[in-house]
């Protein structure tokens, strides 16, 4: 049963290996896209490394629900609708959406997810000690 620190350390290793960044760049506040340079194909790689490292299964769209952002039911004129935001909150309880909600432009969504969000996501899938 890993501690929160151990979860962070394993996520750090996964991101260093997947994104070619340095250890000290992977801080809890760092955004995956903006600060660490992740691109869409990297999420496939990251998800695999998390699955292997924590022995968990991460179904497609669970960490990064891109299906919401491409669904006309939830997006209007390039902005996520109220219904879409409600769906995002439901699907991403691990992410802090407060800032995004102020100006929910789809284009900015990719820069939302932080390393701390990813830690909370993994913590929700494994038993944490301490």
């Amino acid at each position, binding site marked *: 049963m890993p501690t929160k620190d151990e979860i962070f350390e394993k996520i750090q290793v996964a991101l260093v290996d997947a994104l070619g960044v340095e250890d000290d760049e992977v801080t809890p506040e760092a955004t995956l896209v903006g600060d660490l340079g992740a691109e869409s*194909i990297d999420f*496939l*790689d990251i998800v695999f490394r998390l*699955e292997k490292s924590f022995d968990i299964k991460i179904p497609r769209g669970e960490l990064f629900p891109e299906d919401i952002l491409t669904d006309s039911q939830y997006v209007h004129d390039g902005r996520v609708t109220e219904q879409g935001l409600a769906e995002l909150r439901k699907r991403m309880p691990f992410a802090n959406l407060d800032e995004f909600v102020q100006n929910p432009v789809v284009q900015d969504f990719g820069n939302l997810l932080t390393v701390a969000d990813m830690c909370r996501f993994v913590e929700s899938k494994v038993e944490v000690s301490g």
Partner: protein
Amino acid sequence: MRWYWIDRFLEFESGRSAKAIKNISLAEDHLHDHFTNYPMIPGSLVIEGLAQTGGLLICEHGHFEEKVILAKIPKARFHCDAVPGDTLTYTTNIEYVKDEGAMISGTSHKGDQLHAEVEIVFAHLNDPRQGALFDPHVFLRMMRLLGAFDVGHAADGGPLLPPPRLLKADDGDGREHTSAKD
């Protein structure tokens, strides 16, 4: 110039691993242009050879129905040079296959000496507007030329056989249909 960067499969274990060799020859033009007066195989072409070894493994696992493209190289480490006269042995293992793509890990050895290590991510293109990347007969020809069916094993341990989809492209006498693109 033909885009074959492996010469022959030594092993092909469906859904698991593949091993292929690449013989390096002074007759290869590109060797003479990489570094003047020091012919050696460029690292990029070693990666391409490993991608072909592992990529065909991924394609075969999906019965050659997925559109598999090299999408990312998370890791590529080279430990020494490989020069004319060397034979490289490429070993690749499937790390995962998902709906969206797959990853292999691979090594290149010169005899017992580790030459290179890679990880390669392949994406599955799922845009229906995108036509086939290769005609089935191209895959069939590659797999036969490289000896995959001579050495390969299916997931159940039996001999590796061409999937029906590829055989449909065969004219029945061992030759493949050619298309206008050939």
